């Protein structure tokens, strides 16, 4: 299956190189959860058989990240949004499918070949308490990526670059001698952002960068990310579960459920007219400040386990509109009148 996918992607790659920065094609990722070899052996019907179980984290995702946009991926925990981010960054290898950066395949490169791409692609993590090394000063933390990616720079050049990065996120360069624990959560997240910006990347993957922060600090960090995008013409892949942040920040939104893409649309379109039943339920659940308590759409049951995926549409068990076809046939993304893309038989048939 891997080979087939690869062949298909090389064809499509050449058509769309001009507008997308990152292309994800037919991405699958499964994690083996059956333990080591001996754990996998089971005694069944008088025979010893080997059984393996997999978590199917991503099941065939196609995404184009266009230059200069902020593509937001939303979904609930366990939907595979973080796995997408990590696979794009090359922190995980895909089980099948390809990832291309400016038309070049990057998912099959080794560490050495990836180095030049890592300079262009940086990542910001959710928890600034865990993503900064507690034993390094801030200056050391920020200098490390600069020296790794610019081995021929002098110490002075490195220091100037670090100061510039610190300055751009509103951290006083004289604080460089301090350690991470001396900073508050918001300041730490700024330092993480400075670390990403220090190597002048083109593309930043931000995995829930503001979820661990307080409301007033969230606004500061979001503003910072938007300013950086404007000044440096950055492209973002922004992973979040917070739809109100998406509405504010995203150019386009991809909604994921159980490892599949259900809807992909421009932010305005999606918020004005969500098409997929899951997107509708998700949007109705946002706690709003307004007085009128709108009835949120209640979904039946819970998210099924990604170990045994449901047949057909992964959402059919909880969908109020599901019929026989939804139980059997996996829906493909179709383009709607508004220009978005939806993977739903109901929308395709005009039922929803």
């Amino acid at each position, binding site marked *: 299956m891997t080979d087939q996918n690869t062949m298909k992607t090389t064809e499509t790659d050449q058509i769309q190189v001009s507008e997308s920065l990152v292309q994800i094609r037919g991405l699958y990722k499964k994690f083996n959860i059956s333990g080591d070899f001996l754990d996998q052996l089971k005694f069944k019907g008088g025979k010893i058989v080997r059984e393996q179980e997999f978590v199917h984290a991503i099941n065939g995702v196609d995404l184009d990240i266009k230059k200069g946009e902020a593509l937001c991926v939303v979904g*609930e*925990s366990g939907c595979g949004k973080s796995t997408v981010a990590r696979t794009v960054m090359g922190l995980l290898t895909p089980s099948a499918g390809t990832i291309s950066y400016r038309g070049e395949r990057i998912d099959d490169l080794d560490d050495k070949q990836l180095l030049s791409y890592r300079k262009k692609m940086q990542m910001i993590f959710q928890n600034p308490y865990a993503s900064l090394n507690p034993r390094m000063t801030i200056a050391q933390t920020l200098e490390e990526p600069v020296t790794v990616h610019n081995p021929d720079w002098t110490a002075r050049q490195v220091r100037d670059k670090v100061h510039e990065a610190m300055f751009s996120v509103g951290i006083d360069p004289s604080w460089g001698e301090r350690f991470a624990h001396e900073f*508050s*959560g*918001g*300041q730490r997240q700024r330092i993480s952002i400075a670390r990403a910006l220090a190597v002048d990347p083109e593309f930043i993957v931000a995995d829930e960068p503001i979820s661990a922060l*307080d*409301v*007033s*600090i*969230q*606004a*500061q960090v*979001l*503003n910072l990310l*938007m*300013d950086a995008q404007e000044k440096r013409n950055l492209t973002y892949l922004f992973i979040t*579960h917070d*739809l*109100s*942040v998406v*509405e*504010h*920040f995203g150019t386009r939104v991809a909604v994921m459920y159980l490892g599949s893409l259900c809807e992909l649309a421009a*932010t*305005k379109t999606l918020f004005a007219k969500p098409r997929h039943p899951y997107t509708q*339920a*998700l949007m*109705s*659940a*946002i*706690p*709003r*400040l*307004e*007085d009128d*308590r709108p009835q*949120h759409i*209640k*979904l039946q049951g*819970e*998210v099924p386990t990604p170990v045994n995926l449901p047949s057909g549409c992964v959402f059919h068990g909880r969908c109020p509109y599901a019929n026989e076809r939804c139980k059997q046939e996996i829906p493909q993304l179709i383009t709607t009148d508004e220009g978005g893309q939806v993977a739903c038989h109901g929308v395709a048939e005009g039922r929803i």
Partner: protein
Amino acid sequence: MPLLEVRNLEVSFGLRSGDVKALRNVNFTLDRGERLGLVGESGAGKSVLGFSILNLISKPGRISDGQILFEGKDLADMSPEELRNIRGNRISMIFQDPMMTLNPVLTIGQQMVECLQAHRNISNENARTIAVQKLQQVQIPSPETRIDQYPHELSGGMRQRVVIAIGLLMDPDIIIADEPTTALDVTIQAEIMELMVELCERNNVALILITHDLGVVSQVTQKAIVMYAGRIIEQGPTREIINDAQHPYTQGLMNALPQMAIPGQRLNQIRGSMPSLQKIPTGCAFNPRCDYLRDACTKQLPGYTVSGNCKVACHMVAELKQAEQAPHEA
């Protein structure tokens, strides 16, 4: 007489460097069946307040001043035996992370029966019947089989439902919920919050909801308290606070929400961050971050000004209110 009245509450933590006051001068009341939201950022003291209502502050912390009157009796002054009669019985508590709250080596049923038998002289069978009823109330499907499962066999949302069922076991008068849905997804959060409101309304239970999410407070509560650096800075009816916040900090919090901004535009941020409790600025604790700073703000702790149905701790309330109305008149 209100069901719960907190008077002049002060909680201190004795540290080597001296006493740190985590709560100062906290006053509020709660009536039967009323839903109250405690809002604030991390470090504001909202959880400490929640814990101190049940006198659950552990060393080096202590309630250093004030009273917590529950039906007229002071919880701050009770013996451990008397407190045991109230905790989990008359006032119960729901915490953020249900996996930490539930005992992983006991089945749900065992934990529920244990709780019932701690407070009532009741047989195993009867306790189990009540437990199944409560699980039904929180809409857990097939409670008769679920009751014999262990917490790890349930999803996060189901676990939080079980915790709520345990909280409801003794038909308490007050439930204190400390960020009950923060660890959950939005769709689950909406379901759990709806369930809690419904249960509180049906059983006439008062709810103290501790959260950082203004949206949740707006949807669930009738009264709200906004805290900053250990002090209540604004309290009043939820709708009034949400629609017409008086304190510059509350205004800032609301304006910082992406919901309040035009998509793509910069958000209105509050500069700086909350001070550490050891270094609270003199005067108004919010003064280094405030846009309406005056001399009085750095010198004098603001008292409470009544504005509409709200009480606001800000020197500038009257002036801000005037400034707000002026353009309308002109």
